Every structure is written in structure tokens, then in C-alpha cells.
């Protein structure tokens, strides 16, 4: 099933890019078109392999599969962290989500002392990087915009 899903995803990607094709120069499309055609062919081959060899291989990679709940938690935390950047900025968003991730990664029920410890570590790490980048390396970072 993994091969069929993988091949189908590749074909969908090809389709999305194919409808976006719009070239203004003679040679502008030569390379991307060649890549798209080759990728489509390989996508079809992967689907065909999934159908023909469904008894021989699953198509899934043999690394440990994560539970949907765990995977969902990780994705929600990361997406929320990144999505909050334009609003909370690097510093406040960083401290908030660093603490949240650290607390949620505890395997036992966290006490208030644990939460305070995680918050303290978050403040130290995030502020240290913030100062190093903005004051020493002069790299600007997203700021709070509430």
C-alpha cells in the first residue's frame, strides 16, 4: 500500500506543478518539463509496483511507525509554534512553546515545580540565542506584534 500511496502523491505533485506551467522564454521550460515528465513516469512505475508486487513488499519504510496520537501532538506543537512567530515573535513564542514542548514531553504527570524548571530553562535558552543573534551577530529576529 505504501508504494501506491507514494506513487499517487508523486502524481498529484506533478499535476499541481503541470497546471502552473507558464514560460515566457524559449528555454524556460526545457528543464522543468523534462523533470515533470520523468517524475510522472516514475510515479506511475511506483503505483504499478505497488499493485503488481503487493504480496512481495508493503512499500512502507521499516523505521518505527509513530502512533497517530503522538504524531498529531508533535505536529500540532510544531505548526502552532511556527504559526505564532508573526504574532508572538521569536522571544515570547519561543519561551511559550519551548516550555509547552518540554512539559508535554515529560513522561510522568508534571508538578508545578517541574513546570517552573522547564520555564526557567526555556527563558535561559531562548534569551541566550536571542541576545547572541540580535546583539552579537546583528541578525534581526521576528518581534512581538500584538
Amino acid at each position, binding site marked *: 500500500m505504501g*508504494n501506491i500511496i507514494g506513487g499517487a502523491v508523486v502524481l498529484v505533485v506533478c499535476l499541481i506543478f503541470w497546471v502552473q506551467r507558464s514560460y515566457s522564454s524559449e528555454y524556460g521550460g526545457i528543464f522543468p518539463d523534462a523533470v515533470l515528465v520523468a517524475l510522472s513516469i516514475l510515479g506511475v512505475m511506483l503505483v504499478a509496483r505497488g499493485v503488481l508486487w503487493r504480496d512481495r513488499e508493503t512499500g512502507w519504510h521499516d523505521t518505527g*511507525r509513530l502512533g497517530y496520537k503522538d504524531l498529531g501532538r508533535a505536529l500540532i506543537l510544531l505548526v502552532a509554534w511556527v504559526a505564532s512567530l508573526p504574532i508572538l515573535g521569536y522571544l515570547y513564542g519561543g519561551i511559550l512553546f519551548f516550555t509547552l514542548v518540554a512539559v508535554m514531553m515529560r513522561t510522568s504527570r508534571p508538578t508545578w515545580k517541574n513546570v517552573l524548571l522547564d520555564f526557567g530553562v526555556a527563558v535561559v535558552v531562548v534569551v541566550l540565542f536571542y541576545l547572541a543573534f540580535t546583539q552579537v551577530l546583528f541578525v534581526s529576529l521576528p518581534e512581538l506584534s500584538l
Partner: protein
Amino acid sequence: MFEVLGQGLLANLAPSMLLLVLIGTLSGMALGAMPGLSATMGVALLVPFTFAMDPTSGLVLLGAFYMGAIYGGSFTAILVNAPGTPSSIATALDGYPLTRQGRSEFAIVGATMGSFVGGIIGVIALIFLAPPLASFSLRFGPQEYFWVAVFGLTIIASLASGSLLKGLIGGLLGLLLATVGIAPVGGDVRFTFGEPMLQGGVPLVPALIGLFTIPEVIRLIALRTRDAHMVDETRQKDRLGGMLKEILSRPVNLIRSGIIGTFVGILPGAGGSVANLVAYNEAKRASKHPETYGKGEIDGVVASESANNGTVGGGFIPTLTLGVPGTPPDAIILGVLLLHGLRPGAELFTTSGPLVYTFIIALAVSAVMMVPVGLVAGRGLQRGVMALPVRYLAPGITVLTIIGAYAIRSSVVDVFIMLALGVAAYLLQRVGIGGASIVLGLVLGTIAETGLVQGLLTSSGAEMPWTTFFTRPISLVLIAMCLVSILWPFIQKRRTKTTTAGGQAAVPASQRPDTGEGD
């Protein structure tokens, strides 16, 4: 020449100069270790500080910083699977698996010794072979650059240990991502989906961080613990002497990779991002047990690091002799040379001999200093990361990835791109399409397309412009190298099958004799 070389050596032995090289190397290592901060950015940041110095001291500081920054990229590649620069992509392929086996210290030592040897080889080439190698590099036209990129892409055949089909799909997905934005020749705006920030293309460093690091962060947060093999506590601790002995017992891999790095560094525009991949592929091809690559093979780390530090000396060959920068940091250092009224060319070595040779020797001194500094600082950092509770490691890496992705263009869109590519890479990994092939396509896509289109344009007067890709002597050599690279894994597999069929029992890796050839 030997007289000014001696003068350069003496100038470098002065305590003030040694201190300057040490500061440059250390600060370069610190900056290179941060994902998103490239050697180019660091060298550019350092330039204003050198204005107050005399030209020799300024150039020495910049050179040492550059050498250290290229080496520093290996730390995060090994410890948290976040290649700080494209020069360290191949380092992560085996460095991180070594970390997961609890052998990160061994990987750091391998990276240090590889960087040292590669750096020294590059400097030797710069001293003795600069003029002839520089003129040879000018014979590379668009067609040759196209084949260099194709040669780099043939590495997919080696990387795709599980399925060649899925490896090729990954590579083509990378090539497709490389076509996003303004075309390198012709200026067509392609596949931007209405987002103006995408006109500049998919940014390489955020893509690297996303494709390599985010899947690991997802795993760490989801599992709430390190992978079972992250630290192998049952394993006996490696001794430094033993690790050094083991790494130095593979001189062929160290030297070959350094030479590859030096040669690729000479080619303007190629640089460390190509060199580390080519050297990795060659190390794997030459190895007697290529199946261990990608699973924690120290030779992969050594090859990659030796090659990327080889590009430092190699890149200065066309920079100093022709005024054509081999790599982006070379372009900045070339600018500093011009600011001080120094004109690149053969006469630079005669009219400003003491300055040029002091600078070149400083690169070698920096490479030497990387060994003690790297072994102390690198191993210290490794122990710190390993001792860190995973609940702080995962958000700590996330903080770094956000900064790394944002810092390049000061754009939140780049952070979104990083996360999107990271999540996509995690899902693609589930169906066996690895991030390494995608990165390979992304890195080499622009070089391949530029070579292809420029080659067609420059030969448009010919009856069949396509044929020029197959008729030029250097192109033919590169085509032969591509064919060998593609076919080698199959030949190797066939040979292994024949050997097994012949009844020869496989010898366990731990009992293999030391051949000195990359194993």
C-alpha cells in the same frame, strides 16, 4: 617562491598572528555550528572588523574564520542531523547514525581529522599548483558544468540503498523544487503559486534544515524519548588514541577526498556543497562494504569533511590567480583584496608575495589548530548534547531551526517552507523516499539547468546544439565517470552475489582486515 614561503611561515609563527588565527578558527567554528549561518554570511559579517587591521592581519583572520566555519558545520550535522551548511550534507548521512549508535565522539574525531587533512591538501595545491590548475578550470564550459551536476546526481544510485526507483523519485522531486522561482537563464518566473517570496526559489538552508532536522524533531517530540539506540550505554567508551588510530589508518580515503574537494573547489560555483557529495560517493564506491554507508560509517564522515575543507584551498586557486572566486566566501575575500588595492593574477604572488604566502600559510595553521581546538570543543559539545535531557533537546533544536531558517532572508515564509518540507519529508520517509535524495536534487538542480540552457544557447549556431554535450573531450570524461558511478553499485552487488555463491563466508565487519582503503 621558497623564500617568500619561508617569510610567510615566519610571519605566522609570531604570537600575535597565532592568536589571530586561533580567534578566527574558533569563531568560525562557533558560527559554522549554527544551522542557517553559513561561512559566507560569517565572512561577510567579519569584513567590517578587518577594516581597522593591516591587510595581512585582516586576510589571515578572514581565512582562518572561513576554514573554521566549514569545519564547524559538521557538529550539528553529526549531533542533531542539522547540516549547518550544504557543505555538510553528506556528513549528516553517516554522522547522525553514528550519534544514534552512541558513537558521536568517534564521528566528531573523524570529522576533525578529515577537515585537517582536506584543509592541508587544499593549501598544498594552492601553493604549488595554482597557475596550471587555474588555467585548466577555465576549460570548463556550460556543457561540462551540466555533466558535473549529472555526476553529482548519480550519487542517488549509491544513496538509494533500499530502492533505486524511490531514490530517483526523491532526486527528481529535489530537481523540481530547484525549478521554483526565477529561472537561472531567461528569467522566467516559474511555480511560485502567487507567493512573491518564492520568486527567489526554495531557499537552500531552510530546505536542508527542514528535510533533515524536522523529521527527527517530530520523532523526538512524538516518542518523548531518544531512540532506543541514541546512546548505547552497553558500549565500551572509545579512547581518543584508539579513535585517532582507526581514522588515520584509512589514508587513501582521507587523501582522495581532500583531492576531490580541492579540485571541485577550483571550479567556480561548485564548491563544498558538491564536493562533499562527490567525495562521499567515491568513498562508498571504493569501499569493500558499501552497504554500511548511511548506517553509521565513519568513512562517510571523513570523506565529506576532508572534501569540504579541501575546497577552501582549492577555491582560492582561481580567486588569487584569475580573480574568479571558486566559492561565495572567496568572492568576499576577493573584494577585501581589491579594497586594499591588491589585484589578483600571477603577479600578485610576486609583487605581494609576503602577504599572499602569509595568508596561505595561515590557512594551513588554521587547519592544524582545528585538531586540538576541535577535539576539545567538539567533544565537549558532543558530551553536552548527549547529556541534555531529551525534553530540552527537542525544543532546543527547534529554536535553532527557526533561527537558522529565518536568518538567511529575515523571512517568516522561509520558516513556513522549512516546516512544510520537514513534514513532507517525514511522510515521504514513511514510503521510503529519503530526504537525502531530495536535497541532492535541490542542490544540483540549478547547476544542471544553468549548464544545460547555457550550453544550448552558446551552441545555438551549430546544426544540432545537443551534440556539443557529447563531443567535447572533458564532457566525454565526465560522461564516462557518470556511467561508472551509475553502474558501480550494480557491479558491486553482482560481485557480492558471485562471491557468496562461491561459498565464501562473509566476514563480520568487526573482524575485517585493515586495508587502508576506506574501510
